[in-house]
């Protein structure tokens, strides 16, 4: 008999209790954060932009360091993604930063497929995580997360509008990754042009339905700064690791004959805003959105594609594993069926061919027999003929013998004949002696 009974105290359901003293669980956020610090954080940035647009320089500037990299050439046959990982440490925070670069983006004559390697890379990272999650024996808590948390899309500073490549690429990426559009090399655009350019870009994004990353405004602590910063999208940035003396301080800047563009001067460019948004305010939200939104979407689509369904709560639930096994068996069964079918067809064909060949063989045999018979008949005929001829020859020989006998008899009684012979010889001087004899000349 079942001895288990769970009685929920329904009257007390989720009532708020007041505490009469300090319990101490306010340390929970610290406990949680301590765990994360000892393990370290992963943050993965994807930089999409044409060759030479300043992706590497911007990364160096953002993270205040020099990441090792070779400048790319413009001869790439297609777009390929290059990922490099670094370990950065600031106070007690260890950051495992991965920067993924799109090498060769925008260089080809035919850019139809340019977005594909990027989408494939992003999907591959989701897939790797999904595979780990679906394993029976898995270790998610120390999994090195390679999923892209932020995609910085570098827009060329043309001053006009977005290129169609930009629109197409961003449209393909917006449901898979958090896109933050930035205008690169913004020091080539005048201030008044910049404002128009930004408006044009944002309206084009909206009218094409491109979903860029929304800085979260639901938490009061960050709502204000996020709202203020959003207005300045796309951020017009300038990157530089060179330092120039400004007043009595050294600052990151680009020196021109006509002036100095200071990277961290908010009047000159939006670099500071980008750093604030990307790192100092929303890094955790970018990670969270990647996991709870983009990854979940990928996972759902992938599993649905494979034929999995959620059952309704009343019916017997089945586990992913069971369904997977069932599907696998089904698939194997189909394979087996196909194999059997093919084998049957093969056997049938073989039989047919065999029959054909037998027929042919029979024909050949018949022909052969026929030929043989014909040959034998011929042979017989020839032999008969031979016999005939031999008989004739025999007869002839007999006749010849008889004739010679007659001739010798005639010679004895015919020496008078010699004069005649001589004459005859004179008459037939060329006949051989034998013939004379035969003809009695």
């Amino acid at each position: 008999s079942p001895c288990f009974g769970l009685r929920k105290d329904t009257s007390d359901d989720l009532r708020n209790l007041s505490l009469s003293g300090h319990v101490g669980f306010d340390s929970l956020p610290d406990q949680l954060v301590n765990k994360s610090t000892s393990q370290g954080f992963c943050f993965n940035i994807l930089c999409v932009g044409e060759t030479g647009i300043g992706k590497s320089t911007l990364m160096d500037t953002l993270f205040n360091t020099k990441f090792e990299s070779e400048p790319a050439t413009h001869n790439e046959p297609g777009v390929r993604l290059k990922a490099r990982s670094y370990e950065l440490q600031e106070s007690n925070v260890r950051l495992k930063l991965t920067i993924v670069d799109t090498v060769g983006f925008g260089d080809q004559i035919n850019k139809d497929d340019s977005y594909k390697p990027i989408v494939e890379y992003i999907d591959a990272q989701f897939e790797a995580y999904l595979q780990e999650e679906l394993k029976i024996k898995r270790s998610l808590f120390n999994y090195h997360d390679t999923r892209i948390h932020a995609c910085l899309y570098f827009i060329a500073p043309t001053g006009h509008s977005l290129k169609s490549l930009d629109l197409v690429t961003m449209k393909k990426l917006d449901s898979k990754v958090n896109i933050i559009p930035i205008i690169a090399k913004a020091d080539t655009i005048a201030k008044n042009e910049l404002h128009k350019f930004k408006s044009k870009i944002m309206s084009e994004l909206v009218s094409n339905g491109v979903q860029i990353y929304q800085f979260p405004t639901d938490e009061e602590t960050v709502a204000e700064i996020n709202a203020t910063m959003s207005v300045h999208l796309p951020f017009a940035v300038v990157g530089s690791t060179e330092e120039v003396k400004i007043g009595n301080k050294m600052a990151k800047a680009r020196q021109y004959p006509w002036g100095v563009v200071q990277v961290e001067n908010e009047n000159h460019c939006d670099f500071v805003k980008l750093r604030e948004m990307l790192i100092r305010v929303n890094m955790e939200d970018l990670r969270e959105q990647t996991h709870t939104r983009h990854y979940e979407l990928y996972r759902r689509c992938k599993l649905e594609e494979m034929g999995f369904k959620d059952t309704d709560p009343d019916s017997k639930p089945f586990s992913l594993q069971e369904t997977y096994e069932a599907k696998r068996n089904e698939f194997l069964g189909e394979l087996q069926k196909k194999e059997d079918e093919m084998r049957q067809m093969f056997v049938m064909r073989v039989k047919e061919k065999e029959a054909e060949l037998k027929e042919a063989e029979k024909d050949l045999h018949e022909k052969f027999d026929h030929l043989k018979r014909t040959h034998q008949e011929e042979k017989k005929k020839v032999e008969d003929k031979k016999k005939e001829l031999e008989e004739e020859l025999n007869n002839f020989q007999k006749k010849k013998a008889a004739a010679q006998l007659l001739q010798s008899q005639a010679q004895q009684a015919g020496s008078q004949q010699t004069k005649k012979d001589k004459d005859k010889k004179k008459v037939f001087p060329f006949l051989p002696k034998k013939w004379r004899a035969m003809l009695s000349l």
Partner: protein
Amino acid sequence: MERSMEPPAVPEEEMMPLSVAPSPAGCQLFGYVGIEAVLDQMKIKTMKTGFEFNIMVVGQSGLGKSTMVNTLFKSKVSRKASQPGQEEHIPKTVQLQSVTHVIEEKGVKMKLTVTDTPGFGDQINNENCWDPIIKYINEQYERYLREEILITRKRKIPDTRVHGCVYFIPPTGHWLRPLDLEFMRRLSKIVNVVPVIAKADTLTLDERAEFKQRIQEDLKTHAISVYPQEDFDQDPDDRVLNDLIREKIPFAVVGADQEHQVNGKRVLGRKTKWGIIEVENPAHCEFPLLRDLLIRSHLQDLKDITHNVHYESYRVRRLNESNRPGPSPHNGPPGKGGDGSDL
């Protein structure tokens, strides 16, 4: 999964352990980036979503379980089984009762669920009285697993899994009883078991020390791994701290929910004819240690071990079993043996 894991589509992936750390003098080599702000970002997010904590108390009736829970959380979390003037009802079989409350402290919200187990160990024949408890624990794992494998899953899966099971040992002063051993042996395989010596005010300090010693030996002899388990120490620092804790468990606790006046201060305690036992006085009892362990320092760790170890073990067992059809014995979801012996 059937097909082999495809490596991420990156033709060149270079792991460069280029460590850019600030120079030892403390000033940044290149400049401040602001990466450490991510810690605050995380804290804010977790405070917004709130925390869940599920604790189970197991022990015979009259050992002070409800009082202990109320003392721990400084509020009337559990209603005491025996109210003055009422007959205490001891159920004939083990009944599990769960009560959920939301408590808040300094902006941190916690959804606390306490599961009580009246009837445990109270019968004449207590064979298999742990079965309903094991079944309950496994059912919570099952619930979580079902949510986790949905195609469209919730943003935050509700966590009803038992993070810690406080086991109340009667203060006999001798050895662990067979029931105690059996229970702890079975349960420590599927949940974090925190044994405590209940009503420790009946033991002198010497008796207490001896009792603890024997209990520790007993646990070792029977290879029972209670929380904090040695196998799960993360790093050397953890190990040092946990070794200290392991030397002191089981904590000898006294529960009290009434305040008394001692030396001009109001303290929680039990008033007896021979003195007032101050619950929060480390010289009197080890309640503060228990509270610190469960709440102030190791709460997240209890949850992490439940999630990363116990839940994962359950999941492995469950996923392996569903490939083998056929019913399985009495306890909980299919395939789980009554005594966890199929581990």
